[in-house]
C-alpha cells in the first residue's frame, strides 16, 4: 500500500508540472502557429470562439493558407529588392513596396548583437573583479549585482528617461561642467536603446561570467606566469579561453531576450528605432492583425531557435 502510494506520488510530481507546461506553454505555440496560417478576415476580432467552442475554433482554422508567410516573404524580397513578380496582388504588393517587417527583424538582430557586445565589455571587468575580490566580500558583491534584477524592469528603464532626455540630468551635468555647449540628443535614438539594454541585462551577463571566473583555478594563472607569461598575456591565453562557457552563456542570456525586447525600444528608442518586439506589439494591439502578428512571432521564434537550443545545451552541460 505504501509502495503504491509512493509510486503514485512520484508520478504526480512528474505529471503535474509536465501537464501544466504542455497546456500553458506548448499548446499556446501550436495555437499561435495555427492562427498564423489563417486569414485576417476569419480570425480578426471581434471574434468570439468562446461561444462556438473549441472544436469550431479549430475547424475554422483548418481552412488555413500560407497568406501571412507569403506577406512576410514579400516583405523580405522587397527589402532585398528582388522577385517583384512573386508579390503581385492583394496586400503582398504593399509589403513588397514598403517592407517594414524585415527591417525590424534585421535591426532587432543588429541592436541585440551590438548591445550584447557592449554588455560583455561592461560586464567582464566587473565579473573579473568580483571573482578576484577577497572571499569574504564576494557574497555581498554578488548580492549587489542581483539586487537590481529584483527591481522592476520597467522602473529601471524609466529611470533612464529622466537622465537621457535633452533637458535631463546627464545633459545638465555635461552643460554645467562645460564639456558640451549643446544638449546631446541621446533620448529616442538607438544609443539610448543600447544604454537601456546594457543596463537592464548587465546582471544576466555578470552572473554566468562570475561563476565561470570564480571556478577558475588561480594556480593556472600562476603556472602561466611561472612559465614566463606576462599578466596581460596570461589573461588572453588562460583566463579568457577558460571563461568562454560563461561568455557564451552570458551573451545568449542577453541576446535572446534583447532581440524580442519591447519596453526598452518603446520607451527609450525613437520612431526610427525599429525592433520586432515593438512591431509585433503594435501589429497586435494597434492594427489588431492577429494572424500576421502570430506569423511574425513564429518567424521570430525560428530566428531564435538556434541561440535558444545553444543556451539549453549549455544549461544541460552545466547540469552534468
Amino acid at each position, binding site marked *: 500500500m505504501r509502495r503504491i502510494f509512493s509510486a503514485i506520488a512520484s508520478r504526480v510530481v512528474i505529471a503535474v508540472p509536465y501537464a501544466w507546461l504542455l497546456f500553458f506553454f506548448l499548446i499556446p505555440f501550436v495555437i499561435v502557429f495555427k492562427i498564423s496560417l489563417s486569414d485576417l478576415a476569419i480570425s480578426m476580432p471581434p471574434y468570439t470562439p468562446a461561444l462556438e467552442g473549441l472544436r469550431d475554433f479549430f475547424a475554422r482554422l483548418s481552412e488555413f493558407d500560407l497568406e501571412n508567410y507569403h506577406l512576410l516573404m514579400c516583405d523580405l524580397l522587397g527589402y532585398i529588392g528582388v522577385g517583384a513578380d512573386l508579390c503581385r496582388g492583394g496586400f503582398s504588393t504593399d509589403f513588397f513596396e514598403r517592407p517594414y517587417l524585415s527591417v525590424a527583424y534585421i535591426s532587432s538582430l543588429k541592436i541585440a548583437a551590438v548591445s550584447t557586445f557592449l554588455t560583455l565589455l561592461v560586464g567582464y571587468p566587473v565579473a573579473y573583479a568580483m571573482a578576484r575580490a577577497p572571499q569574504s566580500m564576494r557574497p555581498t558583491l554578488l548580492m549587489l549585482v542581483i539586487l537590481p534584477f529584483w527591481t522592476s524592469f520597467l522602473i529601471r528603464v524609466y529611470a533612464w528617461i529622466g537622465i537621457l532626455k535633452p533637458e535631463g540630468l546627464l545633459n545638465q551635468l555635461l552643460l554645467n561642467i562645460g564639456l558640451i555647449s549643446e544638449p546631446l540628443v541621446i533620448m529616442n535614438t538607438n544609443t539610448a536603446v543600447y544604454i537601456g539594454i546594457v543596463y537592464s541585462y548587465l546582471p544576466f551577463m555578470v552572473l554566468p561570467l562570475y561563476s565561470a571566473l570564480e571556478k577558475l583555478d588561480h594556480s593556472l594563472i*600562476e*603556472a*602561466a606566469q611561472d*612559465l614566463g607569461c606576462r599578466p596581460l598575456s596570461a589573461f588572453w591565453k*588562460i583566463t579568457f579561453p577558460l571563461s568562454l562557457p560563461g561568455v557564451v552563456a552570458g551573451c545568449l542570456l542577453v541576446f535572446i531576450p534583447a532581440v524580442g525586447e519591447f519596453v526598452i525600444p518603446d520607451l527609450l528608442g525613437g520612431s526610427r528605432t525599429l525592433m520586432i518586439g515593438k512591431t509585433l506589439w503594435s501589429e497586435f494591439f494597434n492594427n489588431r492583425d492577429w494572424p500576421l502578428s502570430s506569423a511574425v512571432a513564429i518567424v521570430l521564434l525560428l530566428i531564435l531557435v538556434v541561440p535558444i537550443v545553444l543556451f539549453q545545451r549549455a544549461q544541460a552541460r552545466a547540469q552534468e
Partner: protein
Amino acid sequence: MKSLGSIRKSFAPWNDPAATPYIRFENVTKKFGDFVAVNDLSLDIYEREFFALLGASGCGKTTLLRMLAGFEEPSAGQIFLDGQNLSGIPPYRRPVNMMFQSYALFPHMTVEANIGFGLKQDRMPRDQIAARVAEMLKLVKLEQFAKRKPHQLSGGQRQRVALARSLAKRPKVLLLDEPLGALDKKLREETQFELTDLQQELGLTFLVVTHDQEEAMTMADRIAILDKGKVMQVATPAETYEAPVSRFVAEFVGSVNLFDGSVSAREGSVASIAYGDGLTIAADNAGDAAVGDQVAFAIRPEKVRVASRKPEAGADNVMSGEVWDIAYLGDMTIYHVKLDDGRVIKSAMLNSSRLVDDPLTWDDRAWITFAPDAGVVLTR
C-alpha cells in the same frame, strides 16, 4: 656527535666551508595581515641538491616556495638565487619553474601545448620547441599522449605532464609543491624513486615541499623541518631521525619514546638522567647537557628491546612492566609496555624468525632494555 652522511656519500657541499649556497633565504619574514607565515627565516641550499621543506600544514613551507617562485614578496628579508637578489623580479622573469600541487595543467590545451607553453613565451623558434617538447615527452614516457587533453589522462600521467612542463625551460631550480600528494600509495612509492633518478640525471636543484616525512626522507639530500614559520632543523634524513636537535623534531619525525628528567651526573659523554621516582637512565650522546639541566631522553621504538625474561644483572637501562598492547604488523611487532611507574613505552621488534621463541602476550610480565647510546639527550 657522529657524522651521519647523506644518501649520496660523495655529495655534501653543506659540509664544505668553501662552497657558496645556490639559493639563499636571508632573514625572510612574510606576514599575511596579522598572521606570520614565515618568521625571520634563513636557509641555504646548494646547487644540485634535492632539498625538502617538511612540516605540517600552516608551517610556512608553501609560502617559502611561493616567495622563491615570485608569487609572494617577502615582508622583510631577501632571497638570492645564484648570487642574484630576486626581490622585485616578477614570476615570469625568474629562472625557476614550479610544479603545482594541483598540477595546474591548462585544461584547454593538449599535453604538447602544455609542455611547450613556457618555451613559446620565450619566443623560441617553432621547430626548436617541437624538438624540446618531444625530448620532454620521451623523458616522462608520454610520447603517445602528446595530442591528449589533460582530462583524458590518469592522475599519474598528469603528474608527469606537469613535471615535463616545469622542466622544459631548463630552470635553475625546480620547485615541487607536494608533488606526490595526489597519487595513490603504490604510485607514490614508484614516483619517489623516479624523481630522484631524474634529478640525478638532469643535475638540477630540486626544492620540494611536503608534509609526508617518508617522502622527504626517501627523496631528499637534506630536509628542513619547519614549524610556525621557523626552521627547527636542517639535516640529512638520517640525522633528523637519529640525531634530532629538539623534542619537536624527535616527535615530528617518526615515533619516539620520551623520558623527561634532569641530568644528575655527568661522566665524559655519558650522563645519568634522573626521571620519575628515583629512577635513572644512562645515556651516551649527552651533548652539552650539564648536571642539573632539564632534559628529555628520546629513544626510538626499534631501539628498545622487550623480553619475557629478566636480563642478566649489570645490563644498562632495564625497566619492567607488563604488556599492555600488541600490534602484529607482519615484518615487525609493536609492543606497548606499561612500566611499573605507569608510563607506556613503545617497542618495535623485528620478526626475524617465523617461530617466536619468546612469545609475549597481553598482560605478561615483560622487561625492556636499551643501550645507552641508542637514544639521544634533548636539551630543547
